[in-house]
Each structure stands twice: as structure tokens, then as C-alpha cells.
């Protein structure tokens, strides 16, 4: 059985357009070894070269990539193989589960055909005949817990988790010795994520395959790999035993990654996200919440149904919800459970079903004209994806000022914008005025959106997954900001997330949503520490933690 060795591998991309980026050194001088039958995890921030490294194993890098160093599979250097030899190596010796299974399957062929194709290309004793191959497809699908009938499905007919499993089945098809899994669980909700991880671990141990797994989430790696390497900026900054790296990381970045995971039930992280900022004095006692009893927003019997030509779907069913002044309410739930829909309805972007009641300060939501504009002044929403929420052509200044202009703000616009940016901790604000979104990091973009919302001076902020797209260090910053704003400005907030740890980090109250229904609703401690509903319990148990992984 071969092992996989990277020997002083460097990979640079040449980019033609723009010249802004020019040559990108995606991977720099990496030395790594995956022993035969072993498991190795690679973690690191987004863009640190993880996928690039993975692709180099099968020489799948795009044409503009240049590789130096050696990639050894057993005794052969992959970079020196002839094309024919390389094709023979691909999939038969090493296979890959690509990042984003969604796009890795050909949309116009059935998944069965696509698995078959691999078998046809690498005919082995086990599947010499057509019938044997079909048999093997069935067998593979069973191995990944899918009914064999699914072979006739087209990719779009499968859920994300199912597609991910098809990819895994395909990777196993030719009985390779090495499997590379690139972020096999991103975009999956925690419960599915747990299933997939368990399955991979099981297959690896059962079949004695070497596994190279990539993720930006330490806890995910910790649960599947014996060794972990940490990458940053194209370099491996730390390699070691999984437990070692997770709990006693040497490199500051490793520690930062490890620390960013809140531990539910740990008082140290309660209302205290990891952040570089020092919190204001007003809330020196993190256990104390400035929440009042004054009801700001109220929903009773709220339902939302989407109608399409052929069918209608109720995304939100009969929800009762209250947001008080100074309260931070976390709305958690699995993907597609209706969180965004509920939030959009609460701010009047979505029409609820007749009979639903949504009241702001005791009055029905205005629908148009002056009333609507006045309402917008009081209730602002931060949309799910900060990158999409900023017009790429407008500067930070213009984006923040947009609300003021729309609201016919009479004061000094410039001063107000500066104030908004300062509130959002983008200081000095002048430095950011002329920047356009693509020049900002994810966290900065998110804060610009928040600054834009805050500049209008709202009483209630509805923030939809404000940190989902951020890596561990950036998310702490944003959460810290929310808390400090609540402390300083008495703001109320409805924060949407599918991450329970986040709720533990900042929320006063938690509502758990499941298939459009709020199944559990109460103070954070009560819901998270003494869950009543089965789904909440499931969520809590599926949430990966480093402790659990190592234990």
C-alpha cells in the first residue's frame, strides 16, 4: 500500500486579468506525509491553499497553476507521470471527494451512470462484466446508506447530503488506496454532517484506506483524523497529533482557531465571544442582561405560504414571537426550517398569510408610503450574506449613506456615516469611505452592512446568519459588536443562526425552529442546558466539539 508524500511542494497561480493579483503563491514549500492506512486532516483559514494541495495529488490543477517539488504516491512522482499512466492512477489509486458535491456531479447524467463510468474506465477483477458493474453500483450505494434506486436519479433530484454521499460512493468505487475528502461536510446541517463524518470514519477503518481530509473546522477534523496539519497563507504552520494540536496548539493561529469554538454550558463563553475588542463598561457583568419588558415587535399566529404554479408550501407555521426592548433573541434551527422567511416577514419584506398578526409597537406593519418609511427607520435587517448585500459598485461611504438619503436625513450626512462606521468598529472611518466591497475582508463587509443599518438609527435589528460565512476569528468580532451595541444603544436584536454555540455566546432568549414551527422557546440557559424538545436535543448532541471528538 502506497503512502502519500508532499515534498517541498509549492504551487503558484498566474492570473491573466487585472494584474491586481498577478502571481498567487497558493501553496508554499509544503512537506507532509500521509502514511499508508493513516488519517491526516488539514485545517486552515479560507484561501490558505488546502484545496490546491489536494488537487495536486491527481494533477488536476488548472492550466494556470505551476507546481514545484514532488508529490509522491508510493514510489512514483505524480508530476512526472505520462498522461496515460496518470489516467491509470486517477481514481484507481487515489480518488477525491470534491469540495461542493453540488457542482461536482454532471447535471445531465444520472448519478448511477456517473459511478458506472468510473468503473468502466478502471476495469478490475471485481467488475469485469456489465452486470458485475451494476451490482457494484448497488453495493456502493448501500455502503453509503442510499437506496439502490437512487442510481437512476439526476443530481438535482437529490439533497445536498445525498449528493455528498454519491460523491463518497463514487470515490470508493474503484477501491482506491487513498481518499482525499475536501470539505465533505460544509453546507450541510449539523445532523447530516454528523452522519457523513461517522460514515467516512467507518469506511476508512473497515477498508483500511488512507484518508486525507480537509476542513476549516477543527472539531470536524478532530473527530475523523489522527493527525492534523494547520495551514495558513499557503504554508503549513503546524502538524501534529490531533489532540495535541487542538488543545495545546503551538502556533498562535492554531490557538485562535481552537479557542473560537464556544462551549455550550461553559460560563466563560456565555455572553462573551472571543474578540480582540474590550467590552464597554456598561455591561461589565456578562451575566446580566439589560433586557426590559417593553414589547417592540410581536407576532401572533404567523404563517407564510409560498405558492408556485403547481404546489404551495408553508414555510412558516403558526408562529408566536415577541421581541422586547434590549433583548437579543436567537432563532436557531436547521437549514430550510423557515428562519429567513420568518425574519423577512417580521420586517415586512414578505407578505404573511391572512390571519397572521405582526405588530410593531402595538400597530400593524405599514405597507406603503410614509408609514413604511418611518417603520424602516426603526427596524433594520442585516441580510444573510454580506457580500451579496453590498452593491459591488458603491463605496462603503455610499452604501452606508444610502439609508440616510432614502430616509431624507437632514443632518450632516458625512458625520453620521462616520459615526455609523465607528459604531461598527471600522475606525478610523475615513479610511474606509472610498473602499469598495471587494477590497474588504468578509468581516469588514459584514460590519459595513451593520453600519448601514445602524446609521438609520433603528430600535430593532434583525440579523440573518451574521457570521455563518466567516471563519472563526472574524465571527467573534461581529458578535462582540452586537453585544456592545446592545449595551451602549439599548438596541434589540433578532439573530438568526443554525449554530447553537452562537446562541450560547450572545442570546438572552432562544427560539428553536423546526420545519416552520417554533418547537422550543425560552431563556438561553433553559433551552440549551435543559432542552425539552427532541429536535433541540438532537441538535445539541450533533454539534461537533473538540472535546467530544477527542474524548
Amino acid at each position, binding site marked *: 500500500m502506497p503512502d502519500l508524500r508532499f515534498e517541498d511542494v509549492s504551487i503558484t497561480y498566474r492570473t491573466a486579468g487585472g494584474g491586481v493579483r498577478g502571481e498567487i503563491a497558493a501553496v508554499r514549500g509544503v512537506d507532509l506525509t500521509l502514511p499508508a492506512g493513516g488519517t491526516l486532516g488539514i485545517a486552515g483559514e479560507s484561501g490558505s491553499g488546502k484545496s490546491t494541495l489536494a488537487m495536486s495529488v491527481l494533477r488536476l490543477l488548472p492550466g494556470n497553476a505551476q507546481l514545484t517539488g514532488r508529490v509522491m504516491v508510493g514510489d512514483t512522482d505524480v508530476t512526472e507521470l505520462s498522461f496515460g499512466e496518470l489516467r491509470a492512477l486517477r481514481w484507481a489509486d487515489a480518488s477525491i471527494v470534491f469540495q461542493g458535491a453540488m*457542482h461536482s456531479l*454532471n447535471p445531465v447524467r444520472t448519478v448511477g451512470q456517473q459511478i458506472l463510468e*468510473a468503473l468502466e474506465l478502471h476495469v478490475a477483477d471485481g467488475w469485469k462484466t456489465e452486470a458485475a458493474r451494476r451490482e457494484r453500483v448497488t453495493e456502493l450505494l448501500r455502503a453509503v446508506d442510499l437506496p439502490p434506486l437512487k442510481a437512476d436519479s439526476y443530481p438535482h433530484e437529490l439533497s445536498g447530503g445525498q449528493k455528498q454521499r454519491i460523491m463518497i460512493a463514487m470515490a470508493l468505487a474503484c477501491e482506491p488506496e487513498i481518499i482525499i475528502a475536501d470539505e465533505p461536510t460544509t453546507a450541510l446541517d449539523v445532523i447530516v454532517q454528523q452522519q457523513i463524518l461517522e460514515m467516512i470514519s467507518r469506511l476508512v477503518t473497515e477498508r483500511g484506506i488512507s484518508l486525507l481530509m480537509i476542513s476549516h473546522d477543527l472539531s470536524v477534523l478532530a473527530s475523523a483524523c489522527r493527525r492534523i496539519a494547520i495551514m495558513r497563507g499557503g504554508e503549513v504552520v503546524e502538524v501534529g497529533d490531533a489532540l495535541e494540536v487542538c488543545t495545546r496548539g503551538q502556533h498562535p493561529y492554531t490557538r485562535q482557531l481552537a479557542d473560537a469554538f464556544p462551549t455550550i454550558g461553559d460560563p466563560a463563553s456565555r455572553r462573551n465571544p472571543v474578540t480582540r475588542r474590550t467590552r464597554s463598561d456598561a455591561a461589565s457583568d456578562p451575566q446580566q442582561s439589560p433586557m426590559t419588558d417593553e414589547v417592540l415587535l410581536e407576532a401572533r399566529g404567523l404563517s407564510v405560504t409560498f405558492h408556485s404554479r403547481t404546489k404551495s408550501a408553508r414555510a412558516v407555521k403558526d408562529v408566536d414571537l415577541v421581541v422586547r426592548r434590549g433583548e437579543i433573541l436567537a432563532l436557531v434551527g436547521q437549514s430550510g426550517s423557515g428562519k429567513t422567511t420568518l425574519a423577512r416577514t417580521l420586517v415586512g419584506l414578505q407578505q404573511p398569510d391572512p390571519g397572521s398578526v405582526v405588530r410593531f409597537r402595538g400597530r400593524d406593519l405599514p405597507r406603503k408610503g410614509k408609514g413604511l418609511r418611518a417603520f424602516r427607520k426603526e427596524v433594520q435587517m442585516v441580510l444573510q450574506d454580506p457580500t451579496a448585500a453590498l452593491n459591488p459598485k458603491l463605496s462603503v461611504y455610499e452604501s452606508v449613506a444610502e439609508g440616510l438619503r432614502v430616509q431624507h436625513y437632514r443632518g450632516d450626512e458625512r458625520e453620521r456615516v462616520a459615526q455609523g462606521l465607528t459604531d461598527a468598529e471600522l475606525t478610523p472611518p475615513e479610511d474606509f469611505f472610498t473602499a469598495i466591497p471587494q477590497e474588504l475582508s468578509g468581516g469588514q463587509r459584514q460590519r459595513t452592512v451593520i453600519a448601514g443599518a445602524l446609521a438609520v438609527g433603528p430600535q430593532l435589528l434583525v440579523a440573518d446568519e451574521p457570521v455563518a460565512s466567516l471563519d472563526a476569528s472574524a465571527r467573534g468580532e461581529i458578535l462582540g459588536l452586537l453585544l456592545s451595541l446592545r449595551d451602549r444603544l439599548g438596541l434589540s436584536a433578532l439573530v438568526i443562526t443554525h449554530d447553537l454555540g452562537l446562541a450560547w455566546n450572545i442570546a438572552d432568549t432562544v427560539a428553536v425552529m423546526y420545519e416552520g414551527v417554533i418547537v422550543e422557546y425560552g431563556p438561553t440557559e433553559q433551552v440549551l442546558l435543559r432542552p425539552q424538545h427532541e429536535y433541540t436535543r438532537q441538535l445539541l448532541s450533533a454539534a461537533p466539539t473538540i472535546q467530544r471528538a477527542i474524548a
Partner: protein
Amino acid sequence: MTNTVPPTEEILLAETGSDRAPRRTSALSYLLSKLGGAAVSMAMVILLGFFAFKVLPGDPVAGIARERQLSPEQIAQLRTQMGLDKPLWQQFVDYIVNVFTLNFGESYVYRKPVGELIGDYFWNTILLTGTSAVLAIALGLWLGQKAGWRPGSLFDRITSGMALVLWSVPTFWLALILLMVFGGTLQWFPTGGMTSPDPPTDPLALVLDVAAHMVLPVITMVAVVYAQYVMVMRASLMEEKSADYLVTARAKGLRDDLVRRRHAVPNALLPAVTLMFLHIGGLIAGAVTVETVFSWPGLGKLTFEAISGPDLPLLQGTFVVFSAVIIATNLVADLIYRRLDPRVRRG
């Protein structure tokens, strides 16, 4: 107008891309909605067919009387025969009735029912434009996918360059040059018409005869039109080229040309199909000029003559028929699209 700009395809691709978002509808409701859209367009065409041409100046009788010795009584008689003395609403009612009986009234010039004339010429035009369309599409798709697979290669540069140059050529001008060179000077091909004046009776010889007459017009139309298809297919394949599933296919150890043929092309075809059929309109515009230059007895030539007539019922007829053809081909495109793309089909 006559030519839809090919390079905008790339932009349009973006749109058809969004059309491809999973959207399942039942075959019947899909068909019905497409048919409904086509019917609305057709109704608008029919209305426009009357009013647009009604405002055309020129009384056919006045034109005749300017050249020929006619007495006032004869002129009045002619006007009655052409139905020109009826009030407008009556003419409109007649027109609508005519359209629905596929009759379109009687041609002023040919003194025959327009429906009959169009029936005589329709298949000639379909033969010419159909052949050209098939050749142009086949050539365009083939060159386009080759070029798009290796953008910037010598093959791509030559193919795209040729396509762009040919696309910039006015159709009628190219037709005329070809006529001069290959018809007049070299005398390789007949200079016009669809058959020899005395068509051979032997079926095979007749086919050969027609084929010989088709060569120049088909070359002209293909040359001007295929460029659009090359560009559509090229852009479409380039768009597809970076798709992740191609990496998967490669990782499985597929040969490069198999990756292209089995995975990239079938996907790239999807947006291309819609766009190609949109260009059928351009082909028909080409038919008018090409048929005129090469004296091809088809609807295009008929249209050209109807303009110089002015032969109002004939013009209305060809206009409605041309529009109907385009609408029908677009409908076909939608249906083909549905067959090609499993995501639009019911799961």
C-alpha cells in the same frame, strides 16, 4: 435588425443559465404555457400584419395606371376587383377571415389566392433555409465546441477570426460576389433559380439539378449565419469548461476528448439550443436577400416582389407566415430544451 449580434450571446447565456435553475413542472402545463405564449405572439403578429401594411402608401392601381393605357372605367373596375373600394373595417374583417382560412386574400400582382402562392413557395424556402440552418448549426456547433475547449489556441483563433469576419459581411454583398465569381466568371454553378429551365425528369437527376442550384445560396447563408452558432457554442463551452463536474470526470481518468464529448458538450448544448433557435429570424432575413440575388423561387423572393408591388395581401401573407415559422421554431426549441435538460423535465 437583420443580424442579431452574435457576441451578445455570452450575455444571453447568463440568462439561459438562470433559466436552467431547477424548475419542475409537469409536461402538460409546460407545453400549455409555451403554447399560450406562442399564441399570444401569433395574435399580435396577425394584428400587426394588418395595420402595419395598411398604412403602406401606394395604390397598386395607381402604379399600374401610370404605365399603361387605361380608361377611368377600367381603373374603377380594377379597384373593385382588388377589393380596394371597401371600407377599412370591412377589409379588416376580410383579412381576419382570410387569415383563419389560411387564405390571406388574393394577391394583387399574381391574381391568385395568397395562401396558394405561399403554399407553392413555402417548401422551396424551407428547403433552402432548412439546409442552410442544418449545415450552419452543425458546422457552428462543431467548430464552436472545438474552439471553446481550447480558447486562444491556433484553431480557436482561426475559427473565431473567420467567423467574425464572415459575420461582418453584408449577406447580399457576399451573395453577389459569389454569383459573379462562381456563376458568371467560373461558371461552376448555375446563376439562379431552383432547377434548370427544363428540369430533368429522372428523379436522381432532378435532385442533382436542385442540389447544383442550391450550392451558392446555401454557401452564402451558411457563411453569414454559422458565425453566430460558433460564437454561441464557443462561449457556452467556455462557460462550462470550468465546471467542477469536469474536474470529477478528469479525476476519474477520462481522456480529454471524452471529457469534452461526454460531459462538457451535452451541458454546453443546453443554453446554446435556445439561442440558436432565436437566430432563426436572422436566417429568414437572410432568405429575403439571398433568394432575391439567386432568383430562388421562395417566400423571400416573394416578399421582395411584394414590396415592390406593392402587393399588400401577399406582403401580409409572407409576414404572417414568416412570423409563424419563427414562433414555431422557438416553440420547438423550448421542447427540445426540455428533452435535453433533465432538470426542467419532471423528475
